[in-house]
């Protein structure tokens, strides 16, 4: 736990995160524009849409341009024979240990954005928790899934 895990996730994760951030920011901008239109039509204080625009601008800068990069830099994982070691979190750094013999199943997942960059995420489930490693290269993800599921096939003691 003293040393962070060694592997980083795919660099394209930043782009994928940016796109999904842009999509959600688009909603904020649509609301802002609607407010401007309404302000003109119904003649209420122009400050309301201006404040909305400022908020939209700030969140866009933060979520689209700053956070993805920081997030990527922090995201690390390492798979040992006996356990999986994951680190993530920008302000609160979270490090998790999942022993192989506790792994119940492993999934790979791919949404449309991840598919565009040939990425996939790996989800590891224990009987109590689930852990996700987002945005690995497709072949890395399926290779990792197969490897974990092979390693997890240790004789299970009673649950």
């Amino acid at each position: 736990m003293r040393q962070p895990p060694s592997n980083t996730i795919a660099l394209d994760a930043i782009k994928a995160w940016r796109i999904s951030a842009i999509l959600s920011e688009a909603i904020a901008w649509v609301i802002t524009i609607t407010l401007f239109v309404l302000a003109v039509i119904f003649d209420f204080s122009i400050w309301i849409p201006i404040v909305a625009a400022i908020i939209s601008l700030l969140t866009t800068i933060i979520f689209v341009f700053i956070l993805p990069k920081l997030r990527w830099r922090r995201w690390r994982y390492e798979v040992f024979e006996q356990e999986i070691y994951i680190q993530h979190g920008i302000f609160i750094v979270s490090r998790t240990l999942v022993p192989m013999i506790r792994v119940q199943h492993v999934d790979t997942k791919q949404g449309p954005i991840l598919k565009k960059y040939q990425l996939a995420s790996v989800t590891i489930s224990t009987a109590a928790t689930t852990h996700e490693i987002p945005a690995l290269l497709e072949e890395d993800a399926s290779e990792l899934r197969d490897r974990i599921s092979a390693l997890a096939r240790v004789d299970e003691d009673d649950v």
Partner: protein
Amino acid sequence: MMSDHRRLHPAAIIFNFIKTLRESLFLIIITFISFKDDYLGWYLLGVGVILILIIVFSILSWYRYTYRIEDNELRIEYGIFIRKKRYISKNRIQSIDLTAGVLHRIFKLVKVEIETASSGSGAEASLKAVSLKDGEALRNELKNVKQVDDSAGENLEEELQNEIPVISQKITVKRLFLAGTTSGSIGVIAAIAAVGFSELEQFIPDDFYDETLELIVSLSIVILIVLGIMGLLILWVLGIAGTMIKYGNFTISRNEEELLITRGLLEKKQLTIPLKRIQAIGVEESIIRQPFGYVSVFAEVAGGSIDKGEELSTVLFPIMKANEVEDFLQKFLPEFITERQELNKLPKRSKKYYLVRSVLPFIVMLAGVGFFIPQFIWIPIVLLIGSMYLGILRQKDAGYRIDDKLLTIRYRMLSKVTMVMHHKRIQSFNRKQHKLHKKEKLATIRLSIIGIMGAGKHFTLKELDEEDSNSVSSWYSYRE
């Protein structure tokens, strides 16, 4: 022999009827209120037809419900129009609980609930009413997997039971009473009473209010206070009664592989807890019981189902002196004994985080109340002081310890809880640290075990010394 098709006890018809009736009662009342003036005759006719239908269905569903044991499987067939069959392999059965409600006890019946490890909310199979003798026979037979001959198996079972001294412990009436008086369910009952009253209110005639109001105004404040105290007292007594009914005759015993709990004055419940399903053992010192030195012991059991009105954790013993816990564990769960009192505490520098966390909501409240209703400012002030004290207690009580393969952690929300869990029961370990923590060499750790219904249960210890968090993580890690 149990291989023939068996039916439940005919009393199941009554239970079916009552259950359906209870479910449709609301509808019947609602329709009564809306139709009583104009269509009373038709309404009564309708209700009559519905009642007859319910009775017919109750009888049919009893008639169509059969169970048998065949090929080491419990086979249940049921359903009136759509036949359903459920086969449960003996090997997959995790626990068999016998419950007897008040009605059951009149007919000497039990409800048999059979659970497997699957993560549904209810029991996998529930035989609503079988005679006590059949229920116990069924349980013995289902538990006995490698059995060749029925009768020989039963004899063997009896012999075994005679030979092995069964360890058991029963609650005394005095203790039970004490458990009731300190149960802390007073608040809950008060809330129920308040809600109940507001429901009742509409049935009380208006002039009753006027007269009472006049009466109350004419009374002095002293009598009002007395009335209030008496109300609280009644609630308290109700709380005692509730606890005594629920935990009356509480007996726990242990055999080779499981714990057996029997409890309940009116509704008698018999629970079996397989030892290998116990994920962690907890000792709780509630804020009311702590000054008197009493605690309760509970277990986190994997895969169990939640009945209505049951707690999330399984109570192993409702109340005992703190210094009796050692003996109790020695007797029933020697594999969970640790030096619970000698913990590694949190460093002093973590105190400010605990204080801020517990005080913050009340500071916000203070500001809000101070701004809007300044005459009530004393309420948040009192709460603020209380929360400050609680924050300090939380920091002081938290701690952990490692003994070989056992981890003990202690934390407090309101009650002080000490959990003991086995290394192999912990599903994952997590450590969190933010910038300020890092600067001060503090870290928050979280351990996850399997909780009820297949969901996880998580234990968090906040602001541990970084070195301590590292030692827990290297204890947990399988790497060298």
